[in-house]
């Protein structure tokens, strides 16, 4: 998985490419951790993301909880497989998917 971060004032955009799974989820977790201070809008771009497993969901949930306190989080360009994972797990109701 590759992680591309862009900070624009208090807006953080993170574009993911590849697979967000047990092996790669810790990379996203630390990438977010080091950049989320003072961020009011977090945008996750999933255009290049193939799929995610529950390890990925865990990181998304933690990010959502943080952003619930300090601003908002949106996820963009979600493919069918990932959308289905969100729906099956009830994450579709927790996350904001555009």
């Amino acid at each position, binding site marked *: 998985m590759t992680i591309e971060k862009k900070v624009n004032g208090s807006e953080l955009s993170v574009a993911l490419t590849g*697979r967000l*799974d*047990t*092996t790669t989820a810790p990379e996203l977790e630390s990438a977010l951790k080091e950049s989320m201070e003072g961020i009011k809008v977090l945008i996750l771009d999933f255009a290049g993301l*193939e*799929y*995610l*497993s*529950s*390890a990925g*969901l*865990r990181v998304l*949930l933690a990010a*959502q*909880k943080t952003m*619930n306190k300090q601003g908002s989080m949106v996820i963009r360009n979600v493919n*069918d*497989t990932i959308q*289905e*994972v969100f729906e*099956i*797990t*009830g994450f579709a*109701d*927790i996350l904001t998917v555009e």
Partner: protein
Amino acid sequence: MKELTINAVIENIEQVTSFVDEQLEALDCPMKAQMQIDIAIDELFSNIAYYAYHPGVGPATVRVEVTREPLAVVITFIDHGVQYDPLDKKDPDIALSAEEREIGGLGIYMVKKSMDDISYEYKNGQNILRIKKKIGE
């Protein structure tokens, strides 16, 4: 039938996934089914890696079989670690808010929902977990 026996460690998930994907591609498996299977491998093999031989390391065997009419793949995960039935667990409450949510049990729940069949047995000191996914029309 093909099988791979490998140390059950997180670092080997990628190799297991490639091993299975290679066979799915030879069967012209639809992309979506392949990704669902890859997710299932991540969930099931990581469970073995984390818990079966903790705190040590031991082997796991991943076997891929193909059945016809309807075309389906059956993937079996075998380890001889601690007896553990992942199906003997209540499904998570998926209606809770972000603050109340817990991640435990979500992985196996996703596998249950995306596969056509899942079964577990403990036999001769081995955990045997089997998933089946139809990949034809």
